[in-house]
Each structure stands twice: as structure tokens, then as C-alpha cells.
């Protein structure tokens, strides 16, 4: 392991390798039709570590450029851009993480998994068992309103999740701030409606997992839309469950309706749809990852992916189990396990794969800023 200075920069040997590859790519440019990374690197004459970090986060990690590369190993230039940028990306997650002392979780993904999927949920279940009457915990419940809150009081639930939620938001915000500060662009550029809208549209469509229309070389060397669709299932599944939770909060606080809600209520329908996405999406992405050409994968980045996907899958699975068993004596345990896993995800969010969405989106915004600047200067 190379030595690291106090501001957690990318290890110098990795940064050197990354900039070496970018120089080759900038002299070649054959891949410029594939994604945003190549036109973005072509706007530069030399490459700093800041450029490398930005381009690494702009990369969506498909494999088109690797298979098209005349300099891929075993050529003596040994150019493997997807793998190198994946390794750089992981270092940047650590670099931008707040507070810095917790950034080590990126390096010890095993610990992160044990914490988020094991220790935190287990503690949560244990505390629930301690503070809930066994008679309530292990008795069958009718779906009468408020049965969940007999197990865990609404106050405890909202208080714990709001506190953790606020912390997570703060930590993610600080990370994003570090990323953007490193780009050297002003915040006014980030919030420019034109560029923000373009980046948002590119992110929501996963435009750069589209190759040039036929999809990307993932998991093998053939263009395929599989990863794009499984990612859509995961992402939109997540959004739907988030919407379900938000709607439930509105039901509770504004309409005075208490969970659990009927099967055909809006929160349950949204949550179910999202939950299906969060079952199929992560399974698909894990399956694709297993079949991926390992030449292109960075082991560190991969373990972040697996941890995150496994957690999303478990949360969705326990959510469905809770839905199915909510009238039985198992409800209490199911509820505690599900909420414990969600809490585990929340707590480790700023120190796991979840952050990729923020940095990639910010990278897309910067790309849009640069494109706009380029168009303005060529119009002159």
C-alpha cells in the first residue's frame, strides 16, 4: 500500500498510471463516440490529478473502450481505462468522504457490510426486543391501524430515522462540496438551470450506458442494454420506495392515517412496485457483475458494489416478508429486521457505493458546464 498524506489524495502510483492512460487516449481519440469521458478529456492538453478524479467519476464503467482499444493488454502500452478509472473512483470516494475518519470504511468494505447488514440491524432488533413487551412483540396482529407502532413507537421510529437521515444528508452534502470544490467551478455553474437540466436528463436516462444506441459492452464484449435496464430497476425502485415512505409520512402526519396501510393503498402500491425493482435490479446487476470480464473490474470497486446491492436486496426482501406476515406473530421481528437494515443502509450511505450517484451526477454537471463553455467559445 502506498503512503498516504493527510488530505487523502489518490495514491501517487495510481494517479500516475491514470494520467499516463489519459495522455494516450487524448492522442488517439478513437473512442470519442462512445461516452462523455473522451470528449471531456479532449478538452485538455495535460492532466492533473483533479482532472483524473473528475473523469473517473464521469466514467460509467462499461467496457466499450477496452474492447475497441488497439493498446489494450498485451500491447506494451497496456491500456485498461475502465479498470484504472474504477480504482481511481474508489479512491475519490474515500477522499471526499466526511468526516475523514470514517473514510476508511471504503477500504474495509467487509467491515462496512458487517456493520450495515449485520451489527446495526442486529442491535436494532435487540433494542426492539428489550423495549417491547414480549406479548406485543410475538403476538399476531390484525392489520388494524397502528399495529407497527405497538412494536416500535412512532416517536422512536421517526426520531431515530430523522436524526440519522439528517446526518447522512450532511455527510453527503459535504462530500459533494469537496468534489465540486476540486473541479474549480463556481456553485453558480452547478445550479445553472440549463446545465443542471441536461445533466439530470443524462443521469435519469443513463445516457452513457447507451453506447451509441445499441448499449454497452457489459458484461461481455457485445453491446447490450441489460445493465442499463437493471440499473433503472434499481434506481427507480429506490425512488418509488422513497416516495412510498414520504407518502406514508403525509398520511400519518397530515391525514392522521396510521400504518400499516391496506394492500391497495398508494403507499403500499408504490412500495411494492419499488420493492420489485429493488429485488430484480440488484439481482440482475449482481448476475451481470459475476459474468463480467474480470480483466476490466477493480476488486475494490467491485466489493463496494456487491455490498451495496446485497443490502438493497435484503431491505426489499424483508419489506416483502413484512408485508406478507404483518398479520402473524412474526410481524414484530420482521419489522425490526427491516427497519434495522434500512438504518444500516442509512448509516453507511456516505461511506459506500451510494455516493457514486452524487459524484457521477456532479461530474455530468461539470461536463455540461464545459460543453456549454466550448459551444459559446466556438460560436464566437
Amino acid at each position, binding site marked *: 500500500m502506498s503512503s498516504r498524506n493527510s488530505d487523502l489524495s489518490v495514491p501517487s502510483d495510481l494517479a500516475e498510471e491514470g494520467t499516463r492512460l489519459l495522455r494516450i487516449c487524448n492522442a488517439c*481519440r478513437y473512442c470519442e*463516440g462512445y461516452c462523455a469521458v473522451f470528449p471531456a478529456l479532449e478538452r485538455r492538453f495535460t492532466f492533473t490529478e483533479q482532472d483524473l478524479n473528475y473523469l473517473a467519476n464521469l466514467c460509467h464503467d462499461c467496457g466499450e473502450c477496452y474492447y*475497441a482499444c488497439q493498446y489494450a493488454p498485451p500491447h*506494451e502500452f497496456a491500456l485498461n481505462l475502465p479498470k484504472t478509472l474504477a480504482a481511481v473512483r474508489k479512491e475519490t470516494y474515500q477522499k471526499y468522504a466526511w468526516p475523514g475518519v470514517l473514510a476508511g470504511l471504503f477500504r474495509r468494505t467487509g467491515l462496512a457490510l458487517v456493520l450495515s447488514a449485520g451489527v446495526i440491524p442486529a442491535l436494532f432488533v435487540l433494542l426492539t426486543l428489550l423495549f417491547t413487551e414480549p406479548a406485543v412483540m410475538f403476538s399476531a396482529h390484525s392489520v388494524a391501524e397502528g399495529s407497527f407502532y405497538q412494536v416500535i413507537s412512532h416517536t422512536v421510529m421517526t426520531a431515530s430515522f430523522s436524526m440519522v437521515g439528517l446526518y447522512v444528508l450532511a455527510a453527503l452534502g459535504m462530500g459533494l462540496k469537496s468534489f465540486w470544490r476540486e473541479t474549480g467551478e463556481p456553485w453558480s455553474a452547478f445550479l445553472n438551470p440549463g446545465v443542471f437540466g441536461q445533466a439530470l436528463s443524462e443521469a435519469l436516462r443513463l445516457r452513457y450506458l447507451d453506447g451509441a444506441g445499441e448499449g454497452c459492452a457489459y458484461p461481455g464484449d457485445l453491446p447490450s442494454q441489460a445493465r442499463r435496464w437493471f440499473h433503472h430497476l434499481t434506481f427507480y425502485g429506490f425512488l418509488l420506495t422513497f416516495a412510498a415512505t414520504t407518502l406514508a409520512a403525509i398520511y400519518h402526519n397530515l391525514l392522521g392515517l396510521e400504518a400499516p396501510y391496506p394492500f391497495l393503498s398508494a403507499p403500499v402500491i408504490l412500495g411494492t412496485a419499488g420493492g420489485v425493482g429493488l429485488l430484480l435490479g440488484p439481482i440482475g446487476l449482481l448476475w451481470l457483475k459475476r459474468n463480467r470480464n474480470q480483466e476490466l473490474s477493480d476488486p475494490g470497486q467491485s466489493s463496494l458494489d456487491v455490498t451495496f446491492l446485497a443490502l438493497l436486496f435484503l431491505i426489499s426482501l424483508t419489506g416483502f416478508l413484512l408485508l406478507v406476515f404483518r398479520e402473524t406473530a412474526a410481524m414484530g421481528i420482521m419489522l425490526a429486521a427491516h427497519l434495522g437494515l434500512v438504518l444500516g443502509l442509512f448509516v453507511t450511505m456516505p461511506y459506500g457505493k451510494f455516493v457514486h450517484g452524487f459524484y457521477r451526477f456532479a461530474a455530468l454537471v461539470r461536463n455540461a458546464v464545459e460543453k456549454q463553455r466550448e459551444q459559446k467559445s466556438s460560436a464566437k
Partner: protein
Amino acid sequence: MDSGRTYDVLVVGGGNAALCAAISARQRGASVLVLEASPRHFRGGNSRHTRNLRSMHDGPTDVLTGSYPESEYWEDLLQVTEGQTNEQLARLTIRRSATCRAWMAQQGVRFQPSLTGTLHLSRTNAFFLGGGKALINAYYRTAARLGVEIEYDAEVCELKIRDGRFTSAIVVRNGSSQEVRAKTLVAAAGGFEANLAWLKEAWGEAADNFLIRGTPYDTGKILRILMDGGAKTVSDPTQCHAVAIDARAPRFDGGIVTRVDSLPLGIVVNKNAVRFYDEGEDFWPKRYAIWGRLVARQPDQIAFSIFDSKAIGAFVPPLYPPLQANTIRELAAALQLDPLALERTVSEFNAAARRGVFNLAVLDGCRTEGVTPPKSHWARPLDSPPFYAYPLRPGITFTYLGVAVNERTQVIFQDGKPAKNIYAAGEIMAGNILGRGYLAGIGMTIGTVFGRIAGEEAARHVLA
């Protein structure tokens, strides 16, 4: 590969022309075996390093702007070859180039609109999405799907030819040799640019200082066998596509990233720190391909592109960073040139540069007066430190010495008669069209057009 059977078509080579021939023959129902001398990773010969194909067209298309009529294409070719071209075959190439893109797309090749770093060829050249290796990958996938047999690491070291008729080839693979029989042969095994001994035969000691931009697998073995077997040749062994590349590039296979495009933005001097050719004669896309030969004729086959900070950002940066210094004297020291001589060359050039409005996009009025050789355009005094330099060597892409063919791509023997069942396509016969000079993207056009014809003709010969 089955030495017990007789294939309809044996294709020797594994690049663009070879695959176009194999796919075309297979689509007509012939059984086809492709023998590629390289390992799988380096398959595709020089096609791996290509990016586009020069294409005639009547009007704007999805990937081409404007129009590029036959007459203009022909004029361009005539200009670069200085007439060293077979007009019948050249016009065939040009006309058929119009139909290539649709056929290529059917075989899985993807195109893209040209963006940057492309020498401004969006009107005349269609760009492959991802470049030549992506194209080659698509062709290999299609060939495999159609049932073309493909062998890698398979070097043909002997062809049995009698009375203009091919019967079998001896193939060396994994250290053992075996005989493969086929009813027809398509020779698409490239030029001889990776054969340093042969280059030395043609160029003398100078060849020791050449770098080979192209594949190390183009040893010219098949070309030599056909020549020894009585095939008529075209062009000559010193003719080739050669550009000025960074002297620090690897000996073989450096490809596109080793090319240096800064030449028209400054001056070029030889090892005596003396200028030797008009750096601003014409647009760079029309002149880049002459600089390999120009450098090859300089002492020790080395030259230096020298420019100042005004040029940064105006050209595609090559793989290696330029050498840099704050004065011309210091730059000379870094380049191991005589400092006084370089200072003299630069000050004479600076004094001769007429003022004008610099514009790389047009033939501007920034020219020199009173120096030899002149710089006709884009001449600006070198006066804004830091100063930069790229060391240059001749970079050989592919050689033009080849076998003569007719419109059906049959190899012509010295008695003027076409071979009965031997066809040639790609670099091994490109000299018929390119006797000298180079026109960006025409190598792939020749390979595609004649590869398809060779495959069709071979299949027709077998299945008639």
C-alpha cells in the same frame, strides 16, 4: 482447421481485406478458412490502427457531410500519387467505395459522425465508432456466426502453386506444420513493413532508424512467396505510407498516438539544426503523409518539430510530452543540437516571417520572405517562451510493393496472364492504386472494395 478436407476458399491474412473476402465468400455459400498469423489479441493487422474509410457520396449522409464526387476523389488520388496509379482499378475503388458503408453496417460495423482530432475529414471520410479494432471485432463476430473457420497464430510459410493454379498451403502452428488444401486462395496478408531486413534491402542503413507504426506481423512472407512464384509486381520497395512520428515511440505497433501534428505550427529542423522543407506548404491533412519520407532522407533519419507557446492547444497532443526550454539555446542543448546553429535558423526564420492574420483553418497570409526553404503559410516568429520540441522519426505504416491484379482481383503473373484461382486484396495489392503518396482513409477503402470482390470472385470460381 482440417487438413483432411479441401476448403472452397482459403484466406491468408486476418485484417479488413481478409475478413471482407471471407464474409463475402461465405455469404455466397463457399466454405472458408481464415489463417491469421497473429495471436487473437493482435488480430486484424494494420486495420487495428485505422479509423476511417474514404467514401465517395452524392450528398450528405448520416455520417458524411456535403458530397464527394468521383471526379474530385480521382483528382485527389492523382495528385498524391503523381499519376502512379492504375486508373481502371483506381476508378473501380472510387465507385465501389460508395456502396461500402451500407454493406459494412450489415456486417455489424458502426459509424459515428466525426468530431475532433480527425484532420477535418468529415466530408470525405466515414469514421468507425471506436476505430479499426471495433470494426475488426464486428467482422470476426459476423464471420464466426456465418461459419467461417478462423485460426490464429497460423503462419503460412509455403504456397503450392503450379501453372498459375494454387492447390495447398503449408501452415505452421504451435511449432508444427501441416498442409491445408483449398480450391481458391485469397492473399490478404499485408505488406512487408515489419520485415526490417527487407526494408534495409530497399533503403540501406537508413532503415535502421525507421520505426514501424503498424503491426509487427506484416513480414511480407506471402508477398515474397507470390513474387518468387512468378507474380508481377507493382510500385517499388521504397514506397510506403510513412508519417513523422515521435522518435521515442516503440519500434513496432505504436499506431496513431505516436503521430506528431505540430509541424505546420512551427519549424522543422534536421540534426544540423537546419530547416529542409516548407512546413506550411498546404493543409496538414494534405501534407502529413509526406513527412515520413522527408525525415527518412535527412542525416541519421532524425528531425525536430520546434514551436513556441502560441502553438499549445492548436494540435492534438501526442503520447509523449514535448521537450521544453525557456530559450532556444537551452532547447538546442536538450535536443543535442548545435545551439548557435539553431539560434541562427530561428532568428533567420523569425526575421523572414511576414505579418498577417494567423488562421490554421485557411491558407493564411503568414508566410516567409527571403529564407530557403520558404514557409508558405502559418509562419509566425518563434518568440513566446517556453519553446517546445518533438523529436521525429519516419514511421512506416505500410509498404506499397505488391502483386499486380486485375478488376477481379486475380493475381497477374509476369507473362501477363491472370492466376486461375489466386486472388489478392488489401495492402498486398494496394500499390496498384497507390504507387506512391497517401490519401487519408484510402487504405481501408482499397481493402474493403477488393476484399469483397476477391471473396465474391473466389466463391464464384468454386461454385460455378
